[in-house]
């Protein structure tokens, strides 16, 4: 109940902020000479945009609340207005933020550049797992594409953007090192998951994901899971065939709760992973925290349902 009230208050604040944004926009945000407006639909993409564009771009994120389910987001008129006025949009694609395409189609702008991360990575459009940002190969490509797009909008700062993109990619080295170290020490660790949120990271770390993919997709999309798959997940936990259970910290349901309970009974550590970047983090520190949480679970049996917020800013 307390959480509900908090969320309602937060919702109210969002509505007020949204209203202010509309007011600001209608009072001439498109002021010539001001920095261009860039939208990172998911806050992790917005974070990368900020790191590349620095003071020469105004960055807004839309999906920012780690306590709600991005799959069930509905765009408000204020969001639609902001997106339609932007000069650069970074979106995930794969249906994760399909509503952005509709807004963009309704407000065409020949100057606007849109980076669809799925297309950028040349992934097939029927890729099942939309959580692309957990793949270590994703953000360097996004940073480069963002630098190019910002250069096209503001050629005077081309060198600044390119240097920032290089610096960003270099700053991912600790994460890459942590992944490599995990792979070396705990390669082919068997794990169970609820949704395919962090699968790309788990695969990069050499983990074997034993949960049936159909169950992961059913839980992600909120459709009826097959009883065979539910039983398979239970037997993974009951038989202690996995070293850790990773679950989507932002989305829970009766079935997820029953898996968490079973894991606790069997003393299998659980790790809560986030779909949306938690506040207090940058992309780099967030990803490092996730792999460190996985390592703590596998090495010491430590559960971490939430990431402790470390001051990154």
């Amino acid at each position, binding site marked *: 109940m307390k959480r509900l009230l908090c969320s309602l208050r937060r919702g109210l604040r969002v509505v007020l902020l949204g209203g202010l944004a509309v007011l600001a926009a209608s009072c001439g945000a498109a002021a010539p000479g001001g920095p261009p407006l860039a939208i990172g639909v998911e806050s992790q993409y917005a974070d990368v945009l900020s790191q590349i564009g620095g003071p020469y771009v105004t960055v807004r994120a839309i999906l920012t609340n780690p306590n709600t*389910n991005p799959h069930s987001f509905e765009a408000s008129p204020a969001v639609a207005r902001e997106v339609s006025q932007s000069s650069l949009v970074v979106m995930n694609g794969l249906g994760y933020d399909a509503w952005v395409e509709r807004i963009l189609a309704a407000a065409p702008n020949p100057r606007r550049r849109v980076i669809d991360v799925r297309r950028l990575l040349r992934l097939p459009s029927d890729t099942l797992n939309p959580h692309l940002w957990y793949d270590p190969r994703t953000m360097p490509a996004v940073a480069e594409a963002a630098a190019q797009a910002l250069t096209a909008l503001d050629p005077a700062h081309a060198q600044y953007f390119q240097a920032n993109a290089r610096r960003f990619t270099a700053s991912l080295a600790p994460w890459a090192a942590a992944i490599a170290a995990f792979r070396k020490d705990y390669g082919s660790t068997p794990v169970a998951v609820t949704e395919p949120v962090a699968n790309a990271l788990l695969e990069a770390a050499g983990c074997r994901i034993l949960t049936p993919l159909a169950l992961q997709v059913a839980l992600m999309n*909120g459709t009826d899971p*097959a*009883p*065979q798959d539910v039983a398979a997940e239970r037997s993974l936990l009951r038989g202690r065939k996995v070293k850790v259970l990773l679950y989507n910290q932002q*989305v829970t349901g009766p079935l997820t709760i029953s898996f968490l309970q079973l894991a606790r009974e069997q003393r299998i550590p659980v790790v809560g992973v986030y779909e949306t970047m938690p506040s207090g983090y940058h992309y780099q520190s967030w990803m490092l925290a996730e792999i460190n949480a996985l390592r703590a679970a596998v090495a010491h049996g430590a559960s971490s349902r939430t990431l402790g917020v470390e001051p990154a800013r």
Partner: protein
Amino acid sequence: MSVLLSVPGFLANEPVRVALAVGGGAALVCAVVGCATVMRRQSFAGHALADVSSAGGSAAYLLGVNPLFGFLGMAAAAAGVMEWADIREARERDLLTGVVLGAGLGLAALLLYFDATVRSVSGAAVTVLFGSMFTIPASIVPLALAVAAVALAASAIVHRPLLVSSLSADLARAQGIRVRAVALTHALALALAVSLSAMTVGAILSTALLIGPAAAALRLAKRPASAVVFAALIGLGATWGGIVLAYESFYWTPGHGWPVSFFIVALIFCAYLIAGWRAGRAGVRRAPHPSGCEGT
């Protein structure tokens, strides 16, 4: 292809066992309560209760409590209100029922929105409205079976006076039957039946389990007692058959089971068609009269 080859796996499967228990209880209660509901011409009220109960199911996810409590609380409250209003005129009663139904579903729409945006419950809408039997936690089974037992006991206690007062309220009063108390007991049993059915096939489809087997049975049976037995057999057959088919469907489209609610409702529909065809051949067209007289 692999039909029944996997029987040991089927019965060893925990979600299947939970579904068999909860679905079986729901089918039995719906058969008994459903026959009385059809004979009292309260099918629409039963449907309205189910729709209103969806608001309770949605609220349960928001509050993080057992969804059965949500369905039960809302259905019982709505049943109480509708009995309390006690409107005799059929047109007025239909209007009130329809308006309450709309308000209940509207409230469910709001609560489901909060479920998704505030609590981030995945799939609450599908589970509440269309059922998701294989996600029912095993811890619900004792409560569901207790609710079923209470509903069956209540129906058994009032079944005789209910038959009389369905036939004629004046006759019932002359016999010293407390008509309002009997009607209220039946309405509460109806609320319990609808809640169990909502857990099984979802709030929207719950009328199918309540009315379908009873309607099919009343086409076949000549007496109310045998109608209840037929309805129980049809309801159990459809529910358990639906669970078997949903389990088997996993092997039809590799890796994806079909929704169990679809199979249950489809089987009930088939049973109704077959019952109509058989009744037509036997020359029995009308449902048996509450008095137990044979139809012609």
